[in-house]
């Protein structure tokens, strides 16, 4: 598998570390309540189709990226830097 780092270009999967579902970026408000926080911390979908995951370009530029890929076809359709608006 190759992942398109927005900084380095397309790179081998070995250079990346998997960091889980990109839902981790959507942190609930402090006072969102137990159900929202339980969902955020523990519940993950297992989609047959498009999924958004966090990957760390650990052996590359060091960026965290959100990779969109399809779990059925294995096609990687894109990647964005986390915190790009910064």
């Amino acid at each position, binding site marked *: 598998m190759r992942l398109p780092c927005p900084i380095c*270009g397309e*790179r*081998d999967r*070995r*250079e990346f570390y998997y960091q889980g579902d990109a839902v981790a970026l959507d942190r609930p408000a402090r006072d969102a309540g137990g159900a929202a926080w339980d969902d955020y911390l523990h519940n993950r979908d297992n989609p047959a189709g498009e999924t958004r995951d966090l990957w760390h370009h*650990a*052996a590359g*530029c*060091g960026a965290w990226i959100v990779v969109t890929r399809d779990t059925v076809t294995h096609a990687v359709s894109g990647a964005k830097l986390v915190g790009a608006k910064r």
Partner: protein
Amino acid sequence: MARLIATTPCAGLLPLAIGSVTVTEVDAGPVTLIAPYDGAQKATSDALKAAVGVGFPAPNRTLGQTQGKRPRIVWCGMGQAVLMGADCPDLPQAAVVDQSDAWAIVRIDGADAAAVLARLTPIDLRDSQFKRGHTARTLVAHMTVSVTRVGAQTYEVMAMRSMAGTLVHDLEQAAKNVAARAALA
């Protein structure tokens, strides 16, 4: 008082000459990591250019001379670059760390240099993709390194100093394997 003797990271390990490939250590002079603060990349680049003649490089690129101890700068990660061959000027808008003794820097030179590296790194080393002046943060075997193309058949690899022995071992083994295969042909 003890007399301390400075040794280079690859002292006693290099040079090597195997098949068509030589591996030599590079004494880059002072090495400084520069990480401009948010929004300060242009200001830092301008200050560098005024002081040492090379600005801050774009991602995956280097600037400056690659021969001798002349100022050059190598991109080495998101928002970071290392300046070599010149003392770092005062850069008030960047984080600056002296890493002169922290890197083992080696050059792999020769007709089979790319073939040797290709056994160790997952990046695309083809001429059309990785040209002189291009650089990459990537792997050599299991080590995180910086790989830079400095000539038509010359590559430079920077690894953490503590990994010097492993780096030389891996390069030596790959060079022997490439030479052995060439001998069969």
